[in-house]
């Protein structure tokens, strides 16, 4: 699921994309799940039945019923409400982490692939060191050093994610710079920066789009893992991983505290994985011809 190989992008017609999407029920399900999550995040304040932080101690640890469809937690807070509000935090994590990784990974990858030589060698050895750690372990380690909390969690996950982008962009840039149109641009006297951003950058967009889509889910999954071991988002914030973590202490008799927030994480990540998988097939002309 990690790195994806691509050839240069060929022009596509929109109707083709729609036709392809129609033929893929899994991709439709993915898009629908993401749309549903976006809707939840936008309208959280108007659709939630309760206040996400309002405690009702007389009503704690209630199983799912008509008043609380997903039940209540150890402080009597409504779980459905907290799951709805949690989608906001998840989008925030996904978008910020992917944006930060792109911000660092794309320029470094472009420079590395285009310049070559010692600069390329240096940047790639640095990515080697980062990729030598399993992602979650390095994220835990960084988070342990800089302390818990949402901002720090996003920061540690981005530090772990950028090398993948740098390598992906470098690989594409290296193959694209062999093309004649780059030589032509150089011949007419275009500067290095202009060649990088005007000619090479648009051609590495496909693999980046796929990887970013997959990482939207990946970042949320890692963040949930960090919250689960008590290091990411801190209570009382309505974050799905932190909710599962709290639910763990009550798992023997209040399964709903764990089941519903976890299901929300699963569907969120699944949606982005389905879309990413489909985008991969769609943007990769080599695979498209096969079907």
């Amino acid at each position, binding site marked *: *699921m990690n790195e994806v190989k691509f050839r240069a992008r060929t022009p596509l017609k929109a109707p083709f994309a729609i036709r392809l999407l129609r033929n893929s029920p*899994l991709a439709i399900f993915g898009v629908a799940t993401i749309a549903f999550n976006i809707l939840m995040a936008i309208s959280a304040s108007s659709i939630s039945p309760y206040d996400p932080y309002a405690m009702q101690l007389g009503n704690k640890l209630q199983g799912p019923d008509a008043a609380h469809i997903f039940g209540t937690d150890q402080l009597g807070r409504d779980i459905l409400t907290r799951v709805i509000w949690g989608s906001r935090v998840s989008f925030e994590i996904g978008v910020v982490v992917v944006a930060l990784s792109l911000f660092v990974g794309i320029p470094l990858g472009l420079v590395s692939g285009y310049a070559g030589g010692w600069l390329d060698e240096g940047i790639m*050895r*640095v990515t*080697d*060191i*980062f990729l*030598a*750690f*399993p*992602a*979650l*372990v*390095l994220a*835990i*380690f*960084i988070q*342990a*050093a*800089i*302390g818990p909390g949402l901002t720090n969690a996003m920061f540690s996950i981005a530090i772990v994610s950028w090398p993948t982008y740098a390598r992906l962009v470098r690989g594409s840039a290296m193959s694209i710079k062999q093309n004649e149109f780059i030589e032509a641009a150089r011949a007419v006297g275009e500067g290095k920066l202009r060649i990088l951003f005007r000619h090479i950058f648009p051609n590495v967009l496909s693999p980046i789009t796929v990887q970013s889509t997959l990482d939207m*889910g990946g970042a949320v*999954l890692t963040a*949930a*893992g960090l919250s*689960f*071991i*008590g*290091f990411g988002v801190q209570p009382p914030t309505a974050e799905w*991983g932190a909710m*599962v973590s709290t*639910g*763990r202490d009550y*798992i*023997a008799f209040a*399964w709903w505290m*764990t*089941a519903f927030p*976890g*299901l929300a*994480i*699963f569907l969120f*990540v*699944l949606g982005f*994985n*389905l879309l990413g*998988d489909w985008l991969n097939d769609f943007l990769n002309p080599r695979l498209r011809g096969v079907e």
Partner: protein
Amino acid sequence: MGLAAYVLRRVVLLIPVIIGITTLTFIITRLVPADPIIAFLGEFARPAQVLALEEKWGLNLPLYQQYFRYMYGLTQGDLGISIHTQRPVLVDLEEFFPATIELSTAALLFSIALGLPMGILSAIRRNKAADHAARVFALTGVSIPVFWLGLLLLFVVYYKLGGPGFGRIDPNISPPTRITGLYIVDSIITANWPALGSSLIHLVMPAFVLGYATTAVISRMVRASMLEVLSQDYIRSARAHGLSERVVIYKHALRNAMIPVTTVIGLSYGSLLSGAVLTETIFAWPGIGRYITTAISALDFPAVTGTSILIAIVYVVANLVVDIAYAYLDPRIRLG
């Protein structure tokens, strides 16, 4: 380039990566706002104690000298003293690492045993019901939070059905005599059958939870690789010569399709070690994953650093072994 020269080159290239890993961990630990001396001695340490410890750990030295001391210590196997166990980190890791090896190896074996046939079936029944089912299974595997799956299974198997739940062995059965630290191996060596049975049963659920994502990745890789190979000319020739489909698939296609799959399997070992952190926490599995999470809550930096270095080194060495196997299976790699 011969295989021996290739191996030598790769091993030499490993040295800067390991220096990089340890340097990165040094830099991160030096960014820590928390004071390791206060963490070790507690809030109410006397100034004399603080000074003595500063002297002993070399924290009063300039940063570059601290760095060389730290690197020199590492070459001597000195990972420092754990704050929460008060023992050398190396001793702790020796004690807890076998449990993690046992768990992640079981998870890997499980995912190969399930992922391989699933991938083959998907490839030969492409776009049929079996392929779609395998795809859904795989996408579920990479999307499901490992801790959530673990908790749900624990709820059903342990709390509802009364099956095995926490730890490596039934608390009423004494663990096998420690030889390798791997319960399965040790109980076979010492012919301790009750211990063997109990540790096998306790291994099933954590290994499944940990191995699910890997199963998904392996099955997708096998499928893609099989499809690639099956479209080659030599497969068409084999079929044209009238070989049975069975022989074509298992003797001609699978063998070549396995080359990229080996890489994925090797790389999975690293992500299994990473997943073990969460899995061990849920199942109270006494491995390095649980050790590192406990250490984090205690702000025990020597322990966190030592465990991270150990995992990273196992990871890069696993990658190296995979690359060597790859070069052995496919001579084009080392010639290219």
